[in-house]
């Protein structure tokens, strides 16, 4: 894709009737955003509990390798596990204390994973492993090194190691960085609060990311339901000779925050099937990730805390927390005043793409943007009925798939047909299952279909 093409699309963002045009993509759905109970609540800092658990797998890629021993004293911010490869990330202790055990512990994904357990001594003694760097004189290479050393990963939930994104292969020319402030998942407000309360860090983080990639153009894309954040960000950025940073309002629609759809909305570029954002010259980062980059470089702080929204109909007082990573979710629930009614389902992340937890005693990890507690009432789905052929799943699918046809093909075990339905394009956004009036849950069949195709490939 040529540069000229992108400029053409960017120039399209003209003013109509004095209002800035709002960009978006085709398809998608409009769930209730349910953010009212936490969006105006300032982030509350939470004290670490007595025991913290750090799974070695908190990111996409190889698990980290412990570099401490049982019984050893560690400081806050000290590296306790080393990246297990290029696509992997360091892990740091979020408290000072003693390594109690390195053993299998329950992970939010529901399986047991090798984890480092640390007993908090409450002294909060800080390690000086990472020294603050001067943001003016720091070199691109130093920034990337620091991001890697600080163990920063995508904090929107995908947890892809950030230093990998910042080191594109030489043949991929990057034109833009987009900071993803869409936060299109209902309930979640952690990015929203970060934009409001750590605006300066977000903007400085973006400048550092631009510097690391040696480019000028950066965008912060925010959904129109967060006007206060848009205004705050606008008041904090000024473009100068070095960087050209713009705040872009994108339509409030799910899944606006999907990388491919955000890129489409902001730059007009289309990421072809099977390709990555960097193939069209774009790098997308999450808001909190961006702020984490600023903290790592400017203050020498590794990634040891994150913002978590705790909400849902069973939470007595929904709040946004800044949480030391490794804290069990049960600790957050206590700080919210406990469950106000019987919780039947706990979700880490948003209600559309989050993971259902099998226990409340699993730790907050780098990708935990929220904890939702739903009652039986909220969690239940209606009875499955015959597909009405209503097409709601088709018009709602942001990837232009045919979820109803996929389901049919999976049920009929028609593998030949399945190969033509582009199952690999599915971004698991759940829109199809959300809108289906007959409770067909097409996404579940997409998953089954993918597994079937994979099995067939193995056989062939």
């Amino acid at each position: 894709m040529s540069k000229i093409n992108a400029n053409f699309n960017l120039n399209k963002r003209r003013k109509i009737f004095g209002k800035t045009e709002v960009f978006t993509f085709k398809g998608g759905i409009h769930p209730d955003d349910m953010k009212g109970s936490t969006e105006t609540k300032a982030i509350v800092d939470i004290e670490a509990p007595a025991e913290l658990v750090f799974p070695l797998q908190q990111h996409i890629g190889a698990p980290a390798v412990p570099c401490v021993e049982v019984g050893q004293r560690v400081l806050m911010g000290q590296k306790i596990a080393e990246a297990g490869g290029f696509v992997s990330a360091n892990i740091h202790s979020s408290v000072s204390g003693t390594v109690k055990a390195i053993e299998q512990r329950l992970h939010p994904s529901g399986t047991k994973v090798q984890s480092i357990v640390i007993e908090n001594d409450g002294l909060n003694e800080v390690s000086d492993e990472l020294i603050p760097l001067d943001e003016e004189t720091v070199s691109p290479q130093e920034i990337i090194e620091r991001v890697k050393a600080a163990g920063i990963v995508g904090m929107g939930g995908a947890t892809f190691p950030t230093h990998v994104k910042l080191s594109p292969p030489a043949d991929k020319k990057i034109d833009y960085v987009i900071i993803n402030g869409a936060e299109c998942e209902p309930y979640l407000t952690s990015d929203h609060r970060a934009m409001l309360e750590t605006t300066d860090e977000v903007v400085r983080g973006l400048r550092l990311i631009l510097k690391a990639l040696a480019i000028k153009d950066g965008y912060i894309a925010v959904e129109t339901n967060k006007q206060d954040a848009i205004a705050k960000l606008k008041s904090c950025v000024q473009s100068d000779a070095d960087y050209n940073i713009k705040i872009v309002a994108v339509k409030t629609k799910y899944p606006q925050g999907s990388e491919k759809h955000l890129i489409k909305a902001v730059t007009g570029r289309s990421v072809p099937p099977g390709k990555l954002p960097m193939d069209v010259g774009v790098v997308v980062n999450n808001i909190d990730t961006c702020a984490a980059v600023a903290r790592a470089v400017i203050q020498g702080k590794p990634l040891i805390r994150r913002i978590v929204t705790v909400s849902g109909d069973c939470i007595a007082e929904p709040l946004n927390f800044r949480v030391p990573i490794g804290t069990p979710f049960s600790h957050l629930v206590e700080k919210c005043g406990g469950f106000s009614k019987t919780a039947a389902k706990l979700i880490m992340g948003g209600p559309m793409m989050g993971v259902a937890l099998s226990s409340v005693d699993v730790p907050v990890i780098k990708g935990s943007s929220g904890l939702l507690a739903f009652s039986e009432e909220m969690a239940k789905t209606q009875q499955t009925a015959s597909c009405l052929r209503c097409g709601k799943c088709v018009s709602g699918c942001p990837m232009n798939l045919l979820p109803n046809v996929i389901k049919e093909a999976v049920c009929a075990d028609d593998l030949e047909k399945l190969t033509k339905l582009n199952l690999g394009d599915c971004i698991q956004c759940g829109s199809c299952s959300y809108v289906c009036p007959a409770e067909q849950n097409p996404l579940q069949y997409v998953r089954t279909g993918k597994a079937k195709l994979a099995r067939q490939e193995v056989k062939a």
Partner: protein
Amino acid sequence: MENLKEKLIVTESPHIRDGNTTGGIMLDVIIALMPALIAGVFVFGYRAAALAVVCVGACVFFEWAWCKIVKKQVSIGDFSAAVTGLLLAMNLPVTMPFWMAIVGSLFAIVIVKQFFGGIGHNFMNPALAARAFLLTSWAQAMTTWVQPFTKVAFFSNADAVSHATPLAQLAQNVDTVSQATSASDAAVAELPSYLDLFLGTTGGCIGEVSALAILIGAVYLICKRVISIKIPAAYILTVAALTFVFGGNDGLFSGDALYHVLSGGLMLGAFFMATDYVTTPYTPNGQIVFGIGCGILTAVIRLWGGYPEGVSYSILLMNVATPLIDKYTAPKRFGVVKEKKGDKKNA
């Protein structure tokens, strides 16, 4: 922890739903049909309401009975049989004998719907198929129109005053116009006014007399996102355009498009029958193709066919073409761009 279930529900995402159900949607359709039914009762009297009750009752009963006979789960709770019954009643003249209406209901539910596997599997709109079936079986009864606001006896249609529907009148006018201008002028003067058509004080089937009443229901369905405007808009605009271009007596571009749009079953068909989920395309582009196809067929039947009214047959024909339309209008894969087009834009 307190107030936490021992065994948490662990299912894969997504964890929430929009709350729409088949039953809820069907109930909305029933609500949306009420204004048209009330208009029908107002114009034709209580027999219209009685006919609606008979059709709905019969359809629900046959659905229940069928499910019992073949021992499958009784599906009357989704209200789809009730909708079929109501739509069938809307498509009948008020003088229709009750027993014929019951036979029509049997045909709609058992032959058209359940023989093919029940809701979601039938390929034709049951109510419309039943209407077509009744029309071929009892053409006389199906085309006995009464003068609005005449009293219709409950069990006999002996004293029904036969009365041409507006479209039949219009067709006649077009035929006679070349013979005697003065005579046709007189006939034209007798045509119901636009206002009559809009408000619904004309002859016709129970549900199709008032465009206004149908529109009220349609707006409700569109606001509740039960139907999208795509099919009705494409349908009605196509009919309007074609009847305007080809429907006039004074050469091209002299047709009375508004008359065609407001009269006959077009409004009812476009908003309530051509939007039936099961028998229309699920792809967004396919829905537009479907609407245009219905429009072309309706205009052709009305202008050049033997029938004054072509809505039912048009929709039924397009129902049959639906799988084909779906096949060729599948949405384009996300992210695939035609390089050529992009380059042109750059220039």
